[in-house]
């Protein structure tokens, strides 16, 4: 539409998101089998919806029992404190288990510069020394990394120019599962 400042394009619709989630769940099973020594950590604020959903698929569809799921907030570990215009907003951290010697899978919706993951790697040390940390993201924005960080499991790789934004919607919060590319 003319006059619209913002235009958006659908990257993934509900069906595609669902297929990708099942594929990611299967990839996790392939590596972690029964999840005996593996914990899932959703990164606040946006990774927790994906983490919840994956944990649900793993337990309901693939009958994995006793999946350990936590949420990690990285606000106080970010490297842009006092650098942005807006104050940083903290969220709840909920990790009710010890991560010592565990295999951790970090879960986030979009991997962009990699700085959040850097902060998460530092933040998780407060809970012990994990055996191994992997990264799962629904969307991997290629060519935009500021740090040498890559996902182990990716839903979809996209090429996005810098002033475009990727928005992931979840039914639980946004009434639909979808991924949009938004031009500013």
């Amino acid at each position, binding site marked *: 539409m003319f006059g619209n400042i913002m235009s958006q394009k659908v990257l993934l619709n509900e069906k595609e998101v669902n297929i990708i989630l099942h594929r990611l769940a299967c990839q996790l099973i392939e590596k972690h089998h029964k999840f005996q020594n593996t914990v899932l950590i959703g990164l606040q604020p946006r990774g927790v919806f994906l983490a919840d959903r994956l944990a649900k698929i793993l337990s309901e569809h693939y009958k994995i029992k006793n999946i350990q799921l936590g949420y990690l907030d990285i606000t*106080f570990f970010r490297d842009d*404190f*006092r*650098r942005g215009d*807006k104050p940083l907003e*903290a969220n709840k*951290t909920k990790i009710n288990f010890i991560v010592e010697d565990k295999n951790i899978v970090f879960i986030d919706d979009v991997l962009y510069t990699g700085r959040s993951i850097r902060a998460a790697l530092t933040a998780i040390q*407060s*809970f012990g020394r994990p055996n191994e940390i992997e990264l799962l993201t629904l969307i991997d924005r290629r060519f935009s990394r500021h740090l040498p960080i890559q996902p182990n499991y990716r839903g979809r790789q996209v090429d996005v120019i810098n002033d475009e934004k990727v928005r992931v919607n979840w039914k639980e919060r946004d009434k639909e599962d979808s991924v949009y590319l938004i031009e500013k």
Partner: protein
Amino acid sequence: MSELSVNHLLGIKYLNKEDIKLIFETADHFKEVINRPIKKVPSLRDITIANLFFENSTRTKLSFELAQKRLSADVINFSSAQSSVKKGETLIDTVNNILSMKVDMVVMRHPNPGAGVFLSKHVSASIVNAGDGAHEHPTQALLDSYSIREKLGNVKGKKVVIVGDILHSRVALSNIFALQLQGAEVMVCGPKTLIPKYIDKLGVKVETNLRKALNWCDVANMLRVQNERMDISYFPTTREYTQQFGVNKALLDSLDKEITIMHPGPINRGVEITSDVADSSQSIILDQVQNGVAVRMAVIYLLASKIKQ
């Protein structure tokens, strides 16, 4: 997230309701942090804070220092006993000398009311008032309200009585402002000589009968008798004070409800409160101390986020 409406924490009377809500929500996150195996976050690694204590303090100083260290700030400590203040240096000179060493924030306790406000007008650093004479002690009032909120779910609508030496107490004044801002009802109770004239103009109830006050309240905040600030005799003997205004287990058990007991410390055991009350399950005195670190972390974090690079 919204930010604080102020650049300094000089007193509760300069804050609004949203500020207190923001401080408490931030403190919730820090309370979780300080219960982790590693109780430290790197947020303030580029901030330097000077703790200037022109008056004795143990608990408040430790609590502030711990809060600063858990946020990874660099900390320097200063107490007037070992300083150039004794040699006649003025407050502004002392502070400007410290600030010229690139300090971003000053936490100050001072015997003169208004010292923090005065300083904030003359120096560039962010100021946190850790007690100014008999005026305000904002972080204590914040941690008191935070502890009430934690124990009773909400501060709004609660009835709080502040018992004891209201006249010399900065804790009392800050608590009155903080509790009223959050919609609690406040009563003060103590010997007439230790209740300031016209305090009812602040909208607080005044009661000189402890039993009546305790029957009215949900929470009793017991203040210490500040002998060091008393230049004249305000009551005949400590024993008489204890008989009339001391809380003991028998008195609490004779009430028809269970009230929460608080004390800002240090306790004079056997004077304003007996040991069995201080150590009972009704007392949240040690929770107050733990919450003090989380609340001070929140205050420092939020003020630091407003310091321009």
